[in-house]
């Protein structure tokens, strides 16, 4: 499992799994350690996901040969 490549929702569901594992009575010490570390990485990754990317607005059109093209679109919301 490559945490960096997980989507936000995947990271959250993995985090939930980790939590469930940690709740198990019979979890071994070794497992609990790996789970603990994974959980921290997962939550960091999820937070990173929440904050990544700048605002981007683009407009989608079709060129004459029918291909999809996109270009930046300015939307002024002042006033």
């Amino acid at each position: 499992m490559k945490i960096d490549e997980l989507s936000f929702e995947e990271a959250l569901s993995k985090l939930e799994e980790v939590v469930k594992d940690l709740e198990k009575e019979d979890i071994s010490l070794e497992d609990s350690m790996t789970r603990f570390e994974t959980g921290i990485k997962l939550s960091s990754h999820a937070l990173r996901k929440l904050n990544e990317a700048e605002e981007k607005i683009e407009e989608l059109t079709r060129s004459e040969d029918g291909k999809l093209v996109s270009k930046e679109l300015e939307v002024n919301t002042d006033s």
Partner: protein
Amino acid sequence: MNSENTTNSKIYTVSELSYRIKNNLENSFSGIWIEGEVSNFYFHNKKHMYFDLKDENSKIKIVMFYQNNHKLIFDIEEGLHIIVNGYISVYEKRGEYQLIASDARPVGKGSLILAFEQLKEKLLKKGYFDEEIKKRIPLLPQKIGVATARGGAVLKDIVSVLRSRSDNFHLVVRDVNVGGTTSAGDICEAIEDLCEYGVDTIIIARGGGSLEDLWAFNSEELALKIHDCPIPLISAVGHQTDYTISDFVADLRAATPSVAAENVMLDKKKMVLDLKKIRSGIEERISSRNRSRKDQLGFLIDRKYFRKPLTLLNKAYQDTGELSRDIAGSISSVAKGKRLRYKHQASRLEPEKIRGRIKSHKLLLRNTGMRWSNSFLKHKDNRKNKLGSSLINLEKSNPVAILKRGFSVAFDENTDRAIKSIRDTGIGKIIRLLLKDGTLKAKVMEVDNKIPEIGNKSENR
């Protein structure tokens, strides 16, 4: 006798008479409206319509050919009360007359309303509105597609709501000629384009208007497109009180375009709050746990017997177990709370307040996140300079850190359980030792119930 009489009057051939009747009727009854109830409706090959129009005493045959009936926006069906416009025609081969209809309208309500009701009923029966087939709007849409007029107020509304709730979003706008009866096709195309381009949420939106203005969103064509759309779709048409077929078929109906924007950004904000809560919950647990543990340790330290590394390790192990459970507990209780709060979120939203709160939460999160990742991933020296006492506590609680301090844990090879007592293993048993950089496989040679005085020995040296 008879033949004599007849010579006085004109004798028609059948065709002649039929022709005259046809002429008479068609001239006298053209461009007329007739009102009645539909019965014996027959839609031949889905092209030409044949039915009777009747009242209490009489009925008359009606034919409505494809070139006229395909323009109807509502369906003619059995028992429907309608008025029909057309002319009487005679079918000479059978000596029958019928009304050739050019237009029809429902009685008692408008065609649009009737058409809306009929389509709604039809799609409802087909299961298009079923809750089970509704796709979930992603918690954190990475790319939001919106089909609306590019220069319209609706787009501005959406963007300004998104901006008030987030510094970072990715919006893909597909311009559509929203309005007029031709735009259903445009909206369908826009949905296709957005799907092809690759977005993870689609909003179809337009501002308020009359039933005619919003008609595109009541078309069967668009309803089918929405139903088949593989990407979660939000329908945001008109004002609070406007309901369209699109609203029913869509995965989510937003009362207005602004609300649609709130819906896609709502979840994102909520997640920031939840994650922040989870983390601060963990932190609280850890610091309170460490406080009490310190007290315990202080108490223990005075007792010579307890100054043994082995005992301390055991203790650390127990603490770790409890800690994990505490963390798990705090996370799951937050998660439970989260689910409940989904339902009540909408009412609590006030953009300005939220924005302020989000900013401070983000900051908090960033700090917390940094501390955590530092503590677990980065180098010790770095960490000590940067972090406060809570972090040092945290590090102590990290099970991995115990190994880093030079302790190791023994596991039974077969059961994978930690060996916490000499009774947990025996001579000849295979055990695994977990150290900071790997594991060792070992065999138990001897079992001795005395605890070596490691602590004292090292002090003595």
